[in-house]
């Protein structure tokens, strides 16, 4: 018998998506589709809360292929909240141009559904379905600004490279299934220990890592990200850089800690290289960007590198250290999610007022939009990891996790991460500097545009994310309460 409560969030989101699509046929005022989407997303959170407080432990469905454990609950909560903020950001953005609103929200909801599936997927098929469900609607949404060549380019690049990544992932999965005879992660794990010297298995692991590497946009699989981020509608870019990336990380966490746990000596060095390259190359590239969205694209690549850092300790530590590594990546992911969503919401608001998406175009924003300039300091210095903003704690737990292993490799990566967090300050500070310290450029639009009120939903998105960044910075326990629960993924729970 199926535990429908465990599937309730997915069912609600799927139903909402269908309702949105049907309602779009009859509704005249299309913004109702957005309201339906928001209501559905909110409703989906209710069963999550019910499960979180219920005394029943892990809910295991379909012979262990689909598990709702604390890790799944926390990640689903993050996906719903991130989806919620993206919906808020979308309202005025989608209204402002001739978009197909119903389809827009339908596709977004389908992608959110995929991320919920990923949170619970504990076998290779569920994993693949989840990843595809997250990505496929995004191929369309990235190209939603139909008249804009850059948007077309964004969609095409994302699609071609995304399909390649999926192929790699599937190909690797087929080898794993062939070698281990299992699809569930636990089944693979029990066979993986004996296969670490099998070349085909090593190759399969590498293929799967590469496939997911595309999804999280880690170097050297990041080439699609800057162009896609720049061309896609900004709320979709926010979604790609947060939810889609988080979905990739959830997949990565589940696969490497669960399925390939015994083979950690095989994948950890690969992740080491990916982490070091992502942090360094993306940071150096970000230094030169004038377009804020492109800068944020490179910044999100470098953050992917920081999130990969804790993985490398896996071969050296016991269950506790593995748990810390999982919790560190999750903590980083959660804090990063809100800082980055906030930053993109700010990009939407700031671009409206200043009529520009470049660093120079934002100059002097503090004189005509002090509130946005303040939020700029909050989000960009938050991303840089400066106390008292939440980003410091993300960096802190990342360092803490990687130093668990006393090995020289781990310490070396920590030093690379430390140097990179210093480099990063330069490009984040550059935006804040422009907003606060530079004179207003001549290109700035008239007073009725630059002093127009920020639309309410967008202001709400900014407010929610800023509040989280400020409060979590002072009371990080609010995040660790959840991220500590995700340690179960690494076993021992």
């Amino acid at each position: 018998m199926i535990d429908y409560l465990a599937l309730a969030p997915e069912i609600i989101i799927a139903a909402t998506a269908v309702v949105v699509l049907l309602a779009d046929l009859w509704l005249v005022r299309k913004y109702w589709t957005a309201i339906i989407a928001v209501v559905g997303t909110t409703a989906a959170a209710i069963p999550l809360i019910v499960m979180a407080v219920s005394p029943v432990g892990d809910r295991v469905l379909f012979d262990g292929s689909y598990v709702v454990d604390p890790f799944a609950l926390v990640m689903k909560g993050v996906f719903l909240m991130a989806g919620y903020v993206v919906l808020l950001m979308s309202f005025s953005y989608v209204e402002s141009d001739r978009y197909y609103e119903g389809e827009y929200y339908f596709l977004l909801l389908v992608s959110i559904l995929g991320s919920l599936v990923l949170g619970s997927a504990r076998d290779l098929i569920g994993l693949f379905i989840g990843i595809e469900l997250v990505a496929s609607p995004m191929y369309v949404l990235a190209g939603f600004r139909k008249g804009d060549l850059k948007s077309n380019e964004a969609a095409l690049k994302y699609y071609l490279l995304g399909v390649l990544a999926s192929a790699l992932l599937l190909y690797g999965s087929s080898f794993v299934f062939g070698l281990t005879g299992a699809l569930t992660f636990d089944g693979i794990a029990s066979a993986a220990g004996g296969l670490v010297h099998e070349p085909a298995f090593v190759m399969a692991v590498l293929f799967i890592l590469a496939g997911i590497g595309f999804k999280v946009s880690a170097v050297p699989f990041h080439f699609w990200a800057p162009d896609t981020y720049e061309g896609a509608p900004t709320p979709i870019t926010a979604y790609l850089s947060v939810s889609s990336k988080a979905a990739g990380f959830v997949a990565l966490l589940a696969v490497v800690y669960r399925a390939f746990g015994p083979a950690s000596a095989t994948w950890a060095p690969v992740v080491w290289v990916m982490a070091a390259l992502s942090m360094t190359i993306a940071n150096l590239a970000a230094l030169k960007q004038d377009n804020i969205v492109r800068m944020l694209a490179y910044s999100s690549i470098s953050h992917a590198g920081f999130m990969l850092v804790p993985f490398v300790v896996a071969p050296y530590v016991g269950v506790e250290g593995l748990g810390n590594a999982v919790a560190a990546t999750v903590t980083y992911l959660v804090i990063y999610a809100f800082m980055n969503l906030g930053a993109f919401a700010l990009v939407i608001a700031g671009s409206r007022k200043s009529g520009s998406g470049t660093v120079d175009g934002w100059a002097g924003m503090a004189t005509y939009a002090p509130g946005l300039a303040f939020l700029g300091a909050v989000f960009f210095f938050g991303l840089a990891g400066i106390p008292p903003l939440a980003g410091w704690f993300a960096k802190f737990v990342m360092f803490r996790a990687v130093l668990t292993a006393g090995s020289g490799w781990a310490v070396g990566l920590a030093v690379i991460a430390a140097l990179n967090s210093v480099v990063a300050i330069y490009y984040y500070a550059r935006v804040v500097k422009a907003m606060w310290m530079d004179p207003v450029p001549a290109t700035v639009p008239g007073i009725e545009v630059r002093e127009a009120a920020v639309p309410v939903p967008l202001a709400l998105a900014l407010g929610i994310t800023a509040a989280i960044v400020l409060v979590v910075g002072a009371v990080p326990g609010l995040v660790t309460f959840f991220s500590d629960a995700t340690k179960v993924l690494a076993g021992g729970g």
Partner: protein
Amino acid sequence: MAWFDNGWGLSLIVFLPIAGALVILLAPKKNLTAIKSFGLMFTALPVLLAAVMIARFDYGHASTFQFGTNLSWIASINARYHIGIDGISFPLLVLSTVLTLLAVIYTFNHWPEPYNPKAFMALILVLGTAMNGTFVALDLVLFFVFFELVLLPMYFMIGIWGDKTMMKVPGFKIEAETRLYAAIKFFVFTLFGSAFMLLGFLALYYRSGDFLASGARTFDIPTLIDLGSQGLFTGTFAFLVFGALFLGFAVKVPMWPLHTWLPDAHTAAPTVGSVLLAGILLKLGSYGFIRISLPILPQEAHRWAPAIAILAVIGIIYGALACLAQTDMKRLIAFSSVGHMGFVMLGISTLTVVGINAAVIGMVAHGLITGLLFFVAGSMAHRYHTREMAKLGGNQTLMPKMGAILSFTAIASLGLPGLAGFWGEFMSLVGSYNPAFGLDLGVFRTAMVFGAIGTVLTAGYMLWMLQRVNLGVPSAEWDSHALIDTDVYELTAWVPLMVLIVAVGVFPKLVFGATNGAVVALVAKAFGG
């Protein structure tokens, strides 16, 4: 008063300023009176509380942490809200509260351009919380957060209200406004150091788990000091950890050759920014050495001490020579900080009771004197619209009171006996004649000789500055200017500093009375007497 002694008093001192900043952010932008009164209130209250502490502090047990509390903060990493003050941090905390208040009072009549009192006042207050917090934190994570919290307000202070003249960016073929260059340089340098400091803290945290009976790891500074004094942190591990902490603290002090951010930042900052930067922020670094590096890693401190002494002495001589080459008055004062902090670090490197006492009183004196020097230099630049000493000659004639205060402060700065600056320099030289057991006498006595030469050079450049600025015949340029001598806000801010400079100079027990017990205990515990 139990509530006061059990953490509330100290917590209020730390958090009142930032609460004031929030209140000011809610105040209407136009209402200058409200902004001023909130600023005054939320910095005066900590001074009053600190005064109560002066009365209630148990000087007989200066080495124990008082007025503290220890509460859960981030349970999952065992970081705690552990605060408290002992004889070493106490004078620095008092200095910090007083200087913040005086900065606020001075600002009332000296809003820097671009005029934005609300934001400027809020930043001073945030800075106040960060500085006070660093001196009371007894948990490495808490210390780190406060230590880093100074970055944002100071970055904005320099970047928005700083010096707008153009300068050539070293190493690039471009020009930039001084404030922008100085602000980001300050930020990047400090962040570079503190990133490594954080790695060092985490390394200590992990190693602590190996030694504690419970097996739980800790960021607790007193606990780590206990472990450290048992000599448990040793070998390459300890060497690297000390190096990581050294980077964090030495950038902040700053020690040569990591000092290059200082002249730029101090010169570019608005007056109040320079005062707080020189008066308090630099001490966060040297305080870190005394509070964290020395007692937790005593063997490594012993191993690193000669290197620190040599760098300190290079800083003294280099700072003095650089001063002799300056034409800009504010830049001269900035470079003099490199030299004075060199004496502080020389005192610390001796690892003796005399040396560390010298360091603490040196920090307090430098905070008072250089703070006042920057105040005066700022006020003069405000009136003359130039800081070029060549143009300022005859200041004494034009503004007699301003000139007198400048002379007084400059003479205090060169270490005249009877004024506060004397004790730190003199005792750190005494300390380096006879450093801790096992340290190379040759190195330290050579350091002493060069340090002594440094005091002569210091006297030289300070007197030369006075000669160029105060003496001589005023340039005809100023005939058409209505130069107003010191105003009431300036005197209100400056007289307390002058009184304290004399008081500490004549009666150094004001500081030693608190520090000595704590320093003796620290040295005994870490270095066996």
